[in-house]
């Protein structure tokens, strides 16, 4: 006699708990049959996503047939090749891959029931393992379809976009779990998807709230003890979700609380799925006795959030410790400059600023890596920079810059107290009346305004003894105008964040469309525009002598720059810049700074896949100035002095 008791009904009598049986079917043929059946269940969803993505790809491929206006309407230029245009379609596929599992999970788990075969499927003598394995295999296959599509669409730049794909796959995994958890409670596929999403969100919110409640008094205690209430508020004002996501991207130790909370959500979802596994296979009624499950979920959320709260508290302790050293550095920097006489203080500050801003290392980073090679980097991790990331136990030297901030505070205090002295010294250094290096003159001119800086940069360009000096001058001139890439056309605008150069009154111009990704060519063209703007401003100042106008333009007396200097600067601009790729390799050979070595190595590793882009950079560095502009829309004044160069 076989006896089924309530316990047996819960365990032995369930597919997952069934004992081995000769009559249970679990062979390969059965698995294949179930697998095909589960694939058929998901076919409507997979087919819809695939059809949508392929249709979008087809539209993108056919866009050129519709003309330039259609291309531009969709945000493409004529120069965008097919794979460039397919990039957003790949994003659609990734979004589908990340979100579709919300629907797929309930469909695959409830599909037998929702398609009317619940009792039939449940009464087949198939082993539990075979049932689940077929479902998992079908889920894997269908779940990968959008990612394979995205990978195919992004094949040329797959390595560059791998972050997106891995992020989408992570979200998809969570979506599978959430959808499955929703399927345990309700029978409808859409409602299960919505419930699953809400369920995951609720667990995350619960865990986050509890962790915040745990960490809050600890933070308050720590910061009250160290006396940094203001910084504490600043620290907490940031968007916690955004901060956590940034930390996730950083994969640093201080991202641990977030991973703990993610693990908490996953564990809670797994508990729900485990408790409901009989329901989704048997096609029986939705989860009863959910109070037990709810208690389990809450217990997991409490445990996970407790761990996260402790980790947060530890971060608060480190933050407080590091902040104390920051304050110490700050105070030392402030006192170091504050005790100097005014003239010496300002001169010292200008010299220090020049050394920092125009140093060789700075040039290497800002010019080669950021402006010329920044787009080669695998991810824009700088954009995800989160100051809290610096608050790590191993970041003992991260507050060296605090001393500089202290010095800046001392300078600002003195400048506000003695503005006339500051003006006198800065103008003296910028104009050369006070003996100074060119770097110091540029640093001082930078304080006076863009025309002063352009004048000194032109002088530096005209007298540049080597490539480094030349690059510094070109960079200084180029940074005075900003180039926006909009709808495939290039438009130069003057940097709104600085004291503006006058956009009015200078002749019209348009950059060559090929410069949209050619930063060296852009820089040369922007330097030309700066020179022309300087010439026009100086000519206008000489012509009308209007003091108010001069004050608007120059913030005081106009800079002094001769026609010979301007002509020579133009000649220097027309000269080709040696191939930067070689410069990177040379720089790598002589660099010892670990940060530089790492960045340069990454750049060199990427060289193989970016030969074409580097070639474009080389063309931009060597081509005649005339090729940098769209000649049909550019006033000839921009090409004066560059004829034949």
């Amino acid at each position, binding site marked *: 006699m076989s006896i089924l008791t309530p316990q047996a009904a819960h365990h032995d009598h369930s597919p997952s708990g069934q*004992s081995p049986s000769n009559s249970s079917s679990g062979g390969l043929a059965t698995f294949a049959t179930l697998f095909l059946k589960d694939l058929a269940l998901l076919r409507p969803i997979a087919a819809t996503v695939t059809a949508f993505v392929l249709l979008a790809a087809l539209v993108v491929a056919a866009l050129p047939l519709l003309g330039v206006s259609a291309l531009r309407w969709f945000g493409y230029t004529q120069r965008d090749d097919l794979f460039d245009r397919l990039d957003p379609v790949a994003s659609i596929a990734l979004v589908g891959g990340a979100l579709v599992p919300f629907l797929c999970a309930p469909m695959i788990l409830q599909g037998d029931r929702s398609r009317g075969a619940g009792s039939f499927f449940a009464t087949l003598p198939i082993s539990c393992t075979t049932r689940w394995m077929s479902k998992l295999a079908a889920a894997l296959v269908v779940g990968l379809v959008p990612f394979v599509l995205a990978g195919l669409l992004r094949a040329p730049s797959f390595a560059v976009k791998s972050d997106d794909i891995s992020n989408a796959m992570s979200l998809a995994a969570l979506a599978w779990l959430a959808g499955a958890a929703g399927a345990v409670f309700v029978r409808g596929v859409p409602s299960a998807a919505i419930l699953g999403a809400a369920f995951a969100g609720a667990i995350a919110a619960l865990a986050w709230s509890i962790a915040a409640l745990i960490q809050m008094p600890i933070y308050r205690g720590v910061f009250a003890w160290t006396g940094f209430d203001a910084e504490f508020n600043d620290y907490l004002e940031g968007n916690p979700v955004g901060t956590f996501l940034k930390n996730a991207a950083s994969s640093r130790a201080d991202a641990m609380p977030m991973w703990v909370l993610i693990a908490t959500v996953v564990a809670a979802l797994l508990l729900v799925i485990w408790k409901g596994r009989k329901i989704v296979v048997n096609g029986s009624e939705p989860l009863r006795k959910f109070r037990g499950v709810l208690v389990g979920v809450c217990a997991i959320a409490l445990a996970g959030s407790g761990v996260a709260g402790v980790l947060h508290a530890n971060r608060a302790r480190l933050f407080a410790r590091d902040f104390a050293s920051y304050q110490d550095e700050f105070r030392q920097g402030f006192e170091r400059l504050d005790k100097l006489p005014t003239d010496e203080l300002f001169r010292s500050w200008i010299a220090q600023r020049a050394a920092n801003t125009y140093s060789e290392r700075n040039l290497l980073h800002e010019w080669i890596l950021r402006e010329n090679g920044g787009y080669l980097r695998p991810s824009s991790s700088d954009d995800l920079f989160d100051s809290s990331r610096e608050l790590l136990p191993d970041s003992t030297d991260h507050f060296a810059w605090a001393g500089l901030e202290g010095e800046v505070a001392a300078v600002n205090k003195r400048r506000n107290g003695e503005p006339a002295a500051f003006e006198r010294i800065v103008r003296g250094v910028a104009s050369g009346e006070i003996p100074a290096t060119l770097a110091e003159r540029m640093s001082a001119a930078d304080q006076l305004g863009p025309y002063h800086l352009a004048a000194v940069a032109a002088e530096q360009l005209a007298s540049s003894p080597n490539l480094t000096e030349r690059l510094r001058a070109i960079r200084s001139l180029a940074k005075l105008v900003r180039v926006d890439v909009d709808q495939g056309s290039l438009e130069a605008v003057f940097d709104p964040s600085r004291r503006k150069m006058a956009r009015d009154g200078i002749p019209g111009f348009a950059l060559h469309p090929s410069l949209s990704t050619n930063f060296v060519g852009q820089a040369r063209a922007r330097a030309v525009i700066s020179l022309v703007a300087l010439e026009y401003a100086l000519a206008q100042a000489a012509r009308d002598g209007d003091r108010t106008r001069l004050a608007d333009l120059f913030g005081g007396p106009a800079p002094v720059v001769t026609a010979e200097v301007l002509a020579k600067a133009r000649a220097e601009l027309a000269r080709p810049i040696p191939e930067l790729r070689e410069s990177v390799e040379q720089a790598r050979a002589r660099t010892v700074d670990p940060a530089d070595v790492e960045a340069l190595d990454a750049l060199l590793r990427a060289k193989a896949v970016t030969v074409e882009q580097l070639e474009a950079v080389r063309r931009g560095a060597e081509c005649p100035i005339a090729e940098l502009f769209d000649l049909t829309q550019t006033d000839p004044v921009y090409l004066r002095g560059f004829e034949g160069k």
Partner: protein
Amino acid sequence: MNKQERNPTSSVADEAAVALRSAAESLPPAAQSSDSAHHAMNPTKARSAQPIGVDCRGLVTRFGYVRALDRFNLTVEPGECVGLVGRNGAGKSTLFRAMLGLGSLDAGTIEFTPRLDRGDLLARTGYVPDTLSIYDWMTVGRALNFAARCQPRFDSAWTNELLALLALDRSKSVRALSRGMQARLAFVLGLAHRPDLVLLDEPLLGVDAITHDIVLEVLARMRARDGTTVILATHQPGDLARLVDRVVFVERGRAHTSIAIDDLVDRTKRIVVHGANAGTRLNASCKFSPEAGVLLTRSTEVGATSQLTVTFDGDAHAVEEAIGKIAPEARISRVDLTIHEACADRLRALEVKS
């Protein structure tokens, strides 16, 4: 008692026999050459059968505050055929699901004889639900192939013969099947592996008269030859006489009465008491002795007079004597009940009682 009245389906059964013969004659040559119709009615030659017995004790299943099964007890001997009769929602389907392990039990035990693990149980049990349970994107043939690959005891020859008998087209889409055709397919899927225990949950809803008789005949022959155990839940008590050994009445999750089918009509009696106000007086004051076994009394107004209908399973003389004491002027007439009426009155009685 008129036997014709007691079993109104007997004439239909005769017609079904004719239909079966004509169905066998209409089989394709291959099927005819294998004597498929004969095989269909005599499904014994392929393998030996070992009937399964079931003993349910104290089953309790709750859905929230509702007890779908409330200390349900039922014993079915191997080879026995039991009919379950009860109103909608009485707990019949829940009982089947509990037997198959599809729903959890809150209390109670289910014992199978011989001892079976779940795999064996499912392999040797046929379940025919009241609605077709198969993927609607499949064709009939594909659905059967699916079942064949997943059911190790699937009998293709037997299935083909059932298909032929029930006139099911393999190429037809499940989605396109009518209600009756779906019931036929559900029946084939449930019996395709020649189960030793058959659970039928309203299998004949929506089927035509010929199919109805074929289904009952197939089940009867399976019982006769294989000794298959059958538990049939039905709202058509007329089916019971042709198939079951006894009837169990189910009300609000409990099995209340178990009665042999042959005794059902004999033991369920009804009298009608006529007379001015006799019905009203009797209904208000009549106290029947326990020997009377009164199940149900109903008072109705017929013009200026009232009448009382009494259904009972005890001694008729005791009932008539009790009535005569209160309303000597009343005229009493006995009514012969059909199985359908007997079941309906017993169900009403249970409902009133509970």
